[in-house]
């Protein structure tokens, strides 16, 4: 019997959310446990995806159902080695986020958990959709719960941040919608088959003039999401205001949707435009790496620091993707996972200290290592992962990306490699100011070390931080065929000289 695993995984969070609606708002215990249980079930249900995933380039676990035949849109889901890890990262982080929100959501816990679950569905939908229409629906669906999470459960300036987040993202996605429709009509006009199917659209050669504009429309949307320099200014605000769980999901998986979009759509759809824009994008990526790190260095607020460090780390991801070679893209993919783990963990840790002290200003701490050694130890490991210490996960991604870039365009690799210095500078400076020195503030002398719950939610992340550092091949092997296939598609389409320029006119005339 064929089990529609992807549908189950994607729908289950929302089903749970509907279930929660029937629970009394006051019954917080039940709400928490049901959410935790069900999100854990979702994670467990996603494990077979990994273990039975065949190391080939094919889409796997595919399901196709008619949806709106008149529009040619179908419910088509499936994963390959690229989306597999995004799905797993999402299902892995969600229960952790639920557990992290155990005590720090003071009002309307029910609404929060419902938002979180709907958000999970939205994100998973984005990663598994193989139909552009379906993809777009999920892309927009995920915006709403995130907007609520920031706007309702956020900090003092939450409304500004939520609106900024929403509008920034929405502007991007509107352009993408237009681009999707152009793809749809062009392909339909050319072949007579009006479809949103990603795999079919991928076969089409779009004329160069089209590619440029379509790439820009898709690319802007993804660049905002990543976020790439200079579209990043929504991120620090969103992070600072979002509750811990929101920050973790935002940094852990939401940002990956941008990079994923580049991989899934921009690269195979518009290879000529990619070729054309690569120098620009590589430049922005490298600027992001250095700029994000330098700005992170001078942040007085822990969360802002981590937010800017994200800009820097995601610069690496984009750099890797646009090297268009095996090492770079696989490095980028691994780095996406790494960033989800280490930055997610950093936000968790910052959240834990915020819950105790109600401040995130670095200057309010100092000497914590003595008072909360377990916390300091976890923080240390996560920080080392973030600065790319060999033996931990961050190094594998960073090194492969730098190597990939080096094999293509050395100058970018050289600038990117300075990142190893900058990251160490701001991370260690922050760690020193928070953890070392005298424990001289009265408020900090009463801090409690991590509770078993907190340790419990960090340990799985630490496990993967070490596992990927020591044995990344377990993951690299699964993603390699898909990455190679993607590169092949891009390369062969770029080489194919028949960019059927006239078909543009045919395509339009048929409208």
């Amino acid at each position, binding site marked *: 019997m064929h089990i529609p695993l992807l549908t189950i995984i994607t729908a289950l969070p929302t089903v749970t959310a509907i279930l929660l609606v029937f629970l009394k708002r006051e019954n917080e215990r039940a709400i928490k446990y049901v959410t935790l249980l069900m999100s854990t079930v979702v994670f467990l249900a996603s494990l077979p995806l990994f273990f039975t995933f065949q190391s080939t380039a094919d889409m796997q676990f595919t399901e196709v159902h008619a949806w709106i035949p008149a529009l040619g849109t179908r419910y088509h889901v499936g994963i390959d080695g690229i989306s597999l890890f995004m799905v797993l990262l999402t299902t892995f982080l969600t229960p952790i986020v639920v557990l992290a929100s155990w005590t720090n959501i003071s009002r309307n816990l029910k609404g929060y958990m419902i938002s979180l679950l709907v958000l999970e569905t939205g994100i998973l939908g984005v990663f598994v959709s193989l139909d552009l229409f379906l993809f777009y629906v999920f892309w927009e669906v995920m915006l709403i719960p995130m907007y609520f999470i920031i706007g309702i459960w956020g900090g003092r300036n939450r409304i500004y941040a939520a609106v*900024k987040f929403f*509008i*920034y993202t929405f502007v991007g996605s509107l352009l993408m919608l237009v681009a999707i429709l152009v793809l749809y009509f062009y392909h339909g006009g050319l072949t007579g088959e009006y479809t949103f199917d990603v795999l079919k659209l991928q076969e089409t050669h779009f004329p160069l003039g089209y590619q440029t504009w379509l790439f820009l429309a898709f690319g802007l949307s993804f660049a905002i999401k990543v976020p790439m320099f*200079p579209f*990043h*200014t*929504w991120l620090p605000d969103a992070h600072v205001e979002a509750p811990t769980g929101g920050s973790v999901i935002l940094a852990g998986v939401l940002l990956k949707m941008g990079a994923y979009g580049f991989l899934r759509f921009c690269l195979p759809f518009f290879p000529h435009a990619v070729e054309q824009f690569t120098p620009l994008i590589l430049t922005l990526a490298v600027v992001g790496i250095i*700029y994000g790190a*330098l*700005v992170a*260095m*001078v*942040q007085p607020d822990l969360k802002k620091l981590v937010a800017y460090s994200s800009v820097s780390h995601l610069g690496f991801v984009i750099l890797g993707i646009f090297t268009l*070679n*095996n*090492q770079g893209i*696989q*490095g980028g993919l691994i780095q996406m996972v790494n960033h989800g783990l280490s930055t997610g963990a950093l936000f968790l840790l910052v959240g834990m200290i915020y819950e105790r002290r109600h401040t995130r200003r670095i200057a309010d701490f100092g*000497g914590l*290592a*003595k008072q909360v050694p377990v916390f300091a130890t976890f923080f240390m490991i996560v920080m*080392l992962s973030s600065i790319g*210490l*060999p*033996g931990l996960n961050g*190094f*594998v991604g960073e*090194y*492969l990306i*730098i*190597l990939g870039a*080096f*094999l293509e365009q050395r100058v970018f*690799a*050289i600038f990117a*490699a*300075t990142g*190893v*210095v900058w990251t*160490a*500078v701001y991370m*260690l*400076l922050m760690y*020193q100011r928070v*953890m*070392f*020195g*005298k*424990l001289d503030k009265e408020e900090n002398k009463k801090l409690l070390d991590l509770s078993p719950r907190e340790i419990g939610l960090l340990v799985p992340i630490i496990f993967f931080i070490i596992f990927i550092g*020591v*044995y*990344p*091949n377990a993951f*690299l*092997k699964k993603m*390699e065929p898909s990455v*190679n296939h993607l590169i092949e598609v891009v390369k062969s389409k770029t080489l194919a000289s028949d960019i059927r320029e006239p078909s543009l006119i045919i395509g339009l005339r048929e409208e």
Partner: protein
Amino acid sequence: MFENIWLVPLFPFLGFLLNGLFGSKFSEKQAGIVGSGAVILSFLAAGAISYQLLSLPEASRAVTQTVYTWIETGAFRVDLSFTVDALSAIMLLVVSGVGTLIHIYSIGYMHGDRGFARYFAFLNLFTFSMLILVLADNFLLMFLGWEGVGLCSYLLIGFWYEDKDNAFAGRKAFVVNRVGDFGFLLGICLIFATFGTLDFDSVFASASDVLPPETATIICLLLFVGAIGKSAQIPLYVWLPDAMAGPTPVSALIHAATMVTAGVYMVARCHVLFLLSPMAMNVVAVIGLFTAFLAATIALVSTDIKKVLAYSTISQLGYMFLACGVGAFGAGIFHLYTHAFFKSLLFMSAGSVMHALQNETDMTKMGGLKSKLPVTYRVFLVGALALSGVPLFSGFFSKDAILWKSVVSPLGGFGYWVIATGIAGLTAFYTFRLIFLIFFGRSRVQKEVEKHIHESPVIMTAPLGILALFSLAGGYVGMPHFWDKFDHFLQPVFSKYIENNLFERSEQLFGLEFGFMATSTLVVLLGIGCAYMLYVVRPELPAELSQQFAGLHRFLFRKWYVDELYDATVVRPLAVVSDKVLWRWVDVKIIDGFVNKVAEWAGRLGATLRLMETGLVQNYALMVVVGAVALVGYFLLR
């Protein structure tokens, strides 16, 4: 035993896990036994492997063991695999051997410290990383060990983290090392881009065939940038003196005997590449020589016992690079080996002095301790004689090998010898300045401290004794001409891939070598004599001299103002630019200002348009009419 190479790093790693996870429940004794036991086991394993290596024919003394594939994407593949050959065997024995003694010594030294188990966990992690570095069979795995030792160095320098200065020193070490690693990392990338592999054997075997000289130069210089950072050479040496903030056994193990020599080891390991680029060789030699000089001059005036030793370490590392730079890799490693003994001996004797004086490191508050610390005095003296290069002590043979080869090598020259010999004189001077200031003359120890002066316990003095023995006799394995076992043992490593006949001539020039040896010995004795004059015979002279040459003295005392220079040119501008320009201006004002402006305009536009929604039907009717007229007009006039 060759299939069990992995055991060598495994033991310290287990020690790290045990002390790291359960250390809080261990007593000092248990933590100490776990920590030291792990390194002893590692030493025994290394010994067994080395012994077995000797039983192989010379040419095939290199065994590799692959554990598993670490990273593989496309054509890029890196294994977790270990190699033992003569070079790594020597390093293994030094690291685990000296490491064992230092671990044992630490049980006494760290007695009563709150972080006792944590200390041993870090020390074990360090040993593990260092062994990985030495055993690695490819560049990336070496880099793993390389960064691992850097991490442990950071953790241990800042071990007493409650003092801000210690934490700062640790961070400085890490960041400066990262600057070096930036070069190393790019070097590794270029090696892969050139050779398509990172395995030592494959790279070195094909280097002389496929490597163009310019690429060789770039690769070597990039790798050397890494070495400069790790081995504290100009311009990245500034972290090492500050690193003395760590516990003294750490200074002995990490910042004297092992980690800081990793750069020398790496250059020696990559000798094939370096020999292909005479230019890179010259850079190595000149940087080494100049560093040796600069550090020695600073050591002349420093009054901090550990700082003198730190600068001395930088200086001696410079010697090792000089040796590598003139192609005498064997001599460089030989000096690394003897230096490991006598410098860790000196550090730990200094630790013993500090132990007696309640952690005093200022030599102006010592003096006359000879009778009160008899054991420490004797071993310190042995270390000092070895460091100065007094004949028949270990340092003599290794230093002499470097001096001689720097003049006889086609890559060297008489100028190198003159400067290097001069530095040997300086070394002898500052080393005996230490001895005389600490142990001779009248006591300048504060009264309340003086009451508690005591010789260190056996657990500390026993390792000192063993190290003294090696500092005394360890050099005899490298006696030129008569019993040059050391060089002979290493020879297969350095002639495996490339013909190295730089020193063919030197064998026949024994008479000349003896002459040079005699001259440099005289210079050393002169240095000791000067120290004796200044600090024993006429102890009031140094103060007068420093007043007479106040400018020079201050220049040296402030360490050539290098820290100040870096601070003014790099550290502070970077912080200001990041804060004022990048963040507050570019990010907040320009980018976000633009975003908010757009939002504001959109809002204004909406507000303006809203004015049209007056709700008055007449207005709407008017607009309809105006619109209609405009349209009609447009079509008519078109």
